[in-house]
């Protein structure tokens, strides 16, 4: 039997009818029509479905939609500030050529955001540690890490600019 859940997705409250055994990932992609979160492995190994649930990065394939009643979910579609204004991470991924086929990119951008929210100035080792669960089979990790490092520096400069 379907259950009604109320969930805030990218700042917008939605009521969705879901089967209790349906994953958050399938619910986002099908019921909510947000196909940016990707289904790579569907067992929590690849990280392509990473979303931010109540402020924490999770594999949306390992969460049931029924569990997220009254929760806050942020997906790749909610990362950019406005339709014409991308997030600094997205901009730097383009500048650095940090996407090849692009399938892992939404999950890595979300994980990058979760990392910078928690640790605004990560070392290369800390970035690699944070991204351990995001698999890029084009293996373009170096550019991904450089793009995240550069974003951290940029955001730090912006914060300093605001303070001075």
């Amino acid at each position: 039997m379907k259950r009604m859940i109320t969930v805030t997705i990218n700042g917008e409250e939605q009521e969705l009818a879901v089967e209790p055994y349906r994953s958050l990932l399938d619910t986002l992609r099908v019921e909510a029509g947000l196909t940016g979160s990707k289904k790579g492995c569907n067992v929590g190994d690849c990280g392509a479905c990473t979303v931010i649930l109540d402020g924490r990065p999770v594999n949306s394939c390992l969460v049931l939609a029924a569990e997220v009643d009254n929760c806050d979910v942020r997906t790749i579609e909610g990362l950019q500030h406005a339709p014409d204004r991308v997030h600094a991470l997205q901009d730097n991924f383009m500048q650095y050529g940090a996407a090849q086929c692009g399938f892992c990119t939404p999950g890595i951008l979300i994980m990058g955001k979760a990392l910078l929210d928690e640790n605004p100035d990560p070392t290369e080792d800390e970035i690699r540690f944070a991204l351990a669960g995001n698999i890029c089979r084009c293996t373009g990790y170096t550019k991904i890490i450089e793009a995240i490092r550069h974003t951290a520096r940029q955001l730090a400069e912006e914060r300093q600019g605001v303070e001075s």
Partner: protein
Amino acid sequence: MKRVDYHEPTTLEEAVQLMTRYPDTASFFAGGTDLLVELREQTRRADHVVNLKRIPDLGMLTFDPRAGVHCGALVTVRTLENAPFIRAHYAGLWQAARELASIPVRERATLAGNVCRASPSADTLPPLIADQAVAHVYGPAGRRDVTLEDFFLGPGRTVLSHEEVLTGFSIPAPEPGTGKSYIKHGRRKAMELATVGVAVTLTLDGDSVRDLRIVLGAVAPTPIRAPEAEQVLIGKRPEPALIEQAAEAAIAGSRPISDVRSSADYRRRMVGVQTRRALQQALEAAR
């Protein structure tokens, strides 16, 4: 995923009643990082999942310098990893927590789930046993406590009956002069299952070892103590030759199998190498 009925009890009593109502076909659901995969891959059969996350107070994590840690069943591995007192006083458990899967998995996975899944290679089990953790259990007959050392019966099998729920753990506070370590041996740095895991909790009295527990993971059907190796060092000054002898004793006490990750022979050799290193690390921390 196959269809299942979903239950959200709000009390332990209700959770246990649901398990009693559905013998054999219900599973507890906490983090879900193992359960949902097993249901999807049909390696576990369940017609009912009983989500424990609406039961209050199971998410508590506290530390008291005398009483030690209390960790509720819903505390995630990531919460442990980020807790300063886990890093400071339970270094083996902290190391195991930060090497388990990935951050998004650790944000959901619970310590209690890792314990109840009872995988022989589970990272958190050796340090919990080395630290003499106690599991608190609630069931139809009431409450009982079980030491983690006596908790595991085999791969995927524990002393819990179908209806019993693990509500949390107590882990004693370390005595002064105690050092701890956990070493995970794998083929790669992250997203790995342990080929061999070694946890050491060691207490020094002056120059000599007063108390020592060595626990090996992934080399037997359950995590195992290495009592012969412990006896080599207890009451003695931990000289390099004795540490070597203890590592040899740990090899003799392990009973590994060959599988896709490693041959039994390689596992035995790595038990020796990593027991020596884990002892050295714990000694350094104890001094």
